Structures are given as C-alpha cells and as structure tokens.
C-alpha cells in the first residue's frame, strides 16, 4: 500500500482528522467482526446437538446443547458415503485439472502469439468467446458428450475442465506472452534450442507470475464447482465436497444440521488455511483475472 504509506508520512494531520480516522477504524473493526460471524456460526453449531441448531442458532453450545465431536464422527459416514472419499476426489480433480490447464494453455498461448496463423486466431477468439457463454448453455450436451467418451471419472474429468476452462487461462497467458520480448527466445533458438526446449527452459520460467494467478483462479473455481462435476461424474461412485454437502442437505427426510455444519467446517478449514498462506497471490490473481466475464 504505497499510497497509504505516503498518506501516513507525507501530511501533518490535524487532530480532528486523526480522530476521524480512529472512528473509521473502529467502525470497520465492528463491521469486520460482523463479517466473520457467519463462519463463527458454523463453528459453534458444528459442536451443537442437532435439535438445538435450528432453535438456538446463535447460542454457544454449552451444557445440554454440547455435542462434543459427535457431529464430526457422524458426519464422516453421513449419507452412506465416507466424507474422506469426497475430500480425496476434490483434491485429485482440483490438482489434475489445474496442472493440465496451466501446462497446456500456456503452451498454446505461446504458440498462438508467436506463430499467429489463421488457425491460431480462430482458436484464440473461440476461447475468448467461450468466456461469455454460461454453463447452462452447454450443460446437457456436455454431460452427454462426457458420458459417451467415458470422461465421467475423477481421473478423466480434468479433460472437461481443460476444455471448458481454457478461455480465461489462454486469455491471460496471451496477454502476458505478448509483453515478453521475442529476442530472448530467438537467441535460444539460434543457440540450437528446439521449440520444446525453448519453451520449457526459457518461456516457462518467465510465465511464473501469470501461472500463479491463473493457478489460483482455477483452483478456486474447480474446488468450489458444483454443477459440472455433479452432471458429469457418476455420483453414486464419486462425490466431491460440494456434491456431498448438497446431497446431505438436498435429500429429503430428517436433515442432521449439526453434522452438516461439522462437514461444512471441515470443508472450509483447508480453504481458509490456503487463503491465509497465499493471501497476497490470491488477491493479486483475482485482480488480474477480473477482466473475465
């Protein structure tokens, strides 16, 4: 925050201005506390007996409401499906998809910028076009296509993600590659590097900042995505975390809210840890990807 520093150092502030800032700080602190309350509510209710979640949502889980870790234990096998399997499938799908997208779209983007043939242009503009197409437009036909090609397992669904998610990634990589001077690559090529080696030893390292931005956007998208995996995967066999949670809540009958909250808590803890660790990159990635529709 260079501007804030400048504002703090540069000007001699009158006492009234200082006071105004203090008040703003206090107001923002209160709003911040209100802002985290929903997450705290999940925490509190995951330790509460189911019958009290609906009636005493905002009470602390004390005395007779205290459920200990029962909700977590129950949640693990809730809905006749082990939660740990959902976690594993979510991790597998997110990691493979992100890796595939990063590798293949960056290669394509480099080729598209450097070769710039008619075919390249067609692919590029189709990718940009795909960014404004809502998922509902292709959902039925896409899930049928995936079924026909046996792409309905966690190991193969990344191919669908590569196809449907290519737009944003290519768009961002092309923007970055255009800013890299071609001379470095030409020097490598004159020194006898083939295109593949030029790409992996010269271009790939230079793309790192964009890789991080794109990677974070794709991770956030794939990890939280519900409808695409729900329609494509064979859900009796494979459920990701969002599918699992939707399945518990969406199925009629008695919903165990306490256990659902315990699972939601388990689902968001890794996300919050990831956020706190890579906060800087995440915020930068979001700002970079904001051009997307």
């Amino acid at each position, binding site marked *: 925050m260079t501007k804030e520093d400048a504002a703090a150092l540069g000007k001699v502030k009158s006492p009234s201005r200082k006071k105004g800032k203090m008040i703003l700080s206090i107001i923002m602190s209160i709003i911040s506390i209100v802002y985290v309350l929903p997450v705290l509510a999940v925490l509190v209710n995951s330790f509460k007996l189911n019958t009290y979640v609906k009636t005493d949502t905002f009470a602390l889980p004390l005395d007779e409401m205290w459920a200990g870790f029962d909700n977590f234990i129950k949640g693990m096998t809730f809905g006749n499906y082990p939660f740990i399997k959902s976690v594993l499938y979510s991790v597998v799908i997110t990691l493979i998809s992100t890796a595939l997208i990063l590798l293949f779209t960056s290669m394509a983007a480099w080729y598209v910028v450097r070769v710039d043939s008619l075919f390249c242009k067609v692919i590029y503009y189709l990718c940009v076009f795909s960014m*404004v197409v809502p998922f509902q437009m292709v959902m039925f036909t896409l899930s049928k296509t995936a079924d026909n090609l046996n792409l309905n397992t966690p190991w193969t669904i990344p191919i669908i993600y590569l196809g449907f998610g290519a737009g944003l990634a290519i768009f961002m990589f092309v923007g970055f590659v255009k800013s890299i001077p071609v001379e470095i690559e030409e020097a490598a090529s004159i020194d006898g590097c083939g295109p593949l080696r030029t790409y992996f030893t010269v271009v790939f390292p230079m793309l790192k900042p964009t890789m991080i931005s794109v990677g974070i956007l794709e991770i956030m998208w794939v990890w939280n995505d519900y409808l695409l995996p729900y329609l494509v995967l064979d859900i009796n066999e494979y459920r990701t975390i969002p599918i699992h*949670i939707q399945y518990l809540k969406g199925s009629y009958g008695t919903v165990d809210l306490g256990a659902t909250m315990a699972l939601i808590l388990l689902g968001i803890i890794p996300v919050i840890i990831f956020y706190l660790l890579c906060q800087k990159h995440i915020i930068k990635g979001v700002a970079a990807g904001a051009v997307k529709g």
Partner: protein
Amino acid sequence: MFKKKSGSTLRRPLRKWGLLFLGPITAAFAIGFIWPFIQGIYLSFCKFTLISDANFNGFNNYMAAFSDESFVHAFWYTALFAIVSLVLINVLAFAVAYILTQGIKGSNLFRTVFFMPNLIGGIVLGYIWSMIFDGILSHFGTSIVLNSTFGFWGLIILMCWQQIGYMMIIYIAGLNAVPEDMIEAAKIDGATKWQTLWKVTIPNVMPSITICTFLSLTNGFKLFDQNLALTGGLPIIMQKGASPIKTTEMLALNIYNTFYGSNTAARGTAQAKAVIFFVLVAGLGLAQLAYTRRKEVQQ
C-alpha cells in the same frame, strides 16, 4: 491481432510443432466446449429426450419457452435481483475500498476479512446462510423457504457478503492508481472532500467501475449454486391449469429444473431456454461494456 510478427528464426521451426502445442487444448476445447455448444444450438430446434432421438421441430421450443410462465417469472426475478445486487454490491464495495485507502489503522486486516467469503463455494455459502436466516426466522414462526420476500433479500444479503470483498479488491487497485497530485491540486483549489470524490476520484476509477458493474451484473444473471442451496426456488405458487411457479427461482435454476425435472419431454424447451439465456448474458455483457467504454472516452 498481434502487431509484432516474430522473426523467422523462431517462427518457422515452431510452426511444425503445432500439433504438440495446440493439439491438446484444441481437442479438449472441442470436447468441452465447441461440440456441446453447436449441438446445443441444434437441439434447441429439436424435440428430444435423449440426444439420439432428436427430431427437428422448428421454433416450437422457443415458443414453448416464451409462453412458459415460470420462465418469464424467472426472467423478471433474475433481472430485478441482478440490478438490486449490482447497485448494492458496487456502492458498498466502493465505500469500503475508499475507506481502506484513506490510511486508517488495520486496513490490511480488514481487506483480508472482507475478501474471505469469496473462497467459500456457492453451495456451502447457501447452507451457511440458510441456517442463519432460519435461526432468526424460526423465532417468528417462518422460514426462508416459506416467504419469497425473505428469499429475495436473503439471497441479496448472501451475495453482498460474498461479493463486496471481491469488488473491493478491484476498486482498491483503481483507487491506488489515481494520481496523488490530482487530488492535492483539487484540495489546493478549494474543493471539498465530497467534490474531490465526485469530480476527481470517480472519473479516474471509471475503468474499475466498468469492470465491477459488468462482473456483478453477469454474476447476478448467471447465479445458480447460491440460489439452489439457499431456497431452491421455494416457495411454490400452484396455478390452476398452468405450470406451478417457483417464486425465488432464477433463470439458471429454471433451465436446470426444466432439463432434469420429471417431464423429460420438456428438454427441447429447456435447451431453447438455455440458448435464450446465453444470448441474454452475452448480449448484456457486450452492451454494457460498449456503453461504459464510450463513457470512459468522453471523460
């Protein structure tokens, strides 16, 4: 498109590698986007339950879509939702960003907190908030799924909670790029803080405003997960002799329910709705972008 052509030392040997560099992405793109898209357009003119039994039936699906009251209701509901959320999210996000760029204590911490909900997925967000709203409303003997007014504002609150932090990040970037000396100059000329905000700061952050209005409008129109998890379209109004209307059902959910509802004969209609939805989302985005770009040039 790309002005500068690279020299032949790189370009000519690279051309031969097209299959390796473009092959995987083209194949995946064909499977994941191009083919489903073309097939989707074609099927919107067909009667089908599975794809193999498709029979061409002209514009019948489109007529059915436009005369489907639940779809028309979903359209107006979505439009209202998108506009209300667009205004609220952007005004609040801009206000927060403005305050956080004034050099107050704890700015970074506040930024971290406000952005946090963006990492939680829509389904989970919906269930967190449905628990909270029902926790309040159960004391008044009602529920978020029983009253469509609560359903509407509940979803607005949820979306504000999620998106203010996102838009705030974009506005902070924009505000930090406003030249300091312009604001100083306005101050020296005797402009009040309010005047400086309207005449100097806001014209300078127009690009950010363009991006954010564009984003929140399309996000509002495309909303699905949160809508499904919070109310699922409930409550339902039953009508005599016509299809029931889910009062809080938005366009994306309406299309989904038409596709995968019990009436498989309506799939053609659902695909036609999806095409209409696509034209709407793409058109809106482009129109708004063109409009705000023109404004930027004028300033």
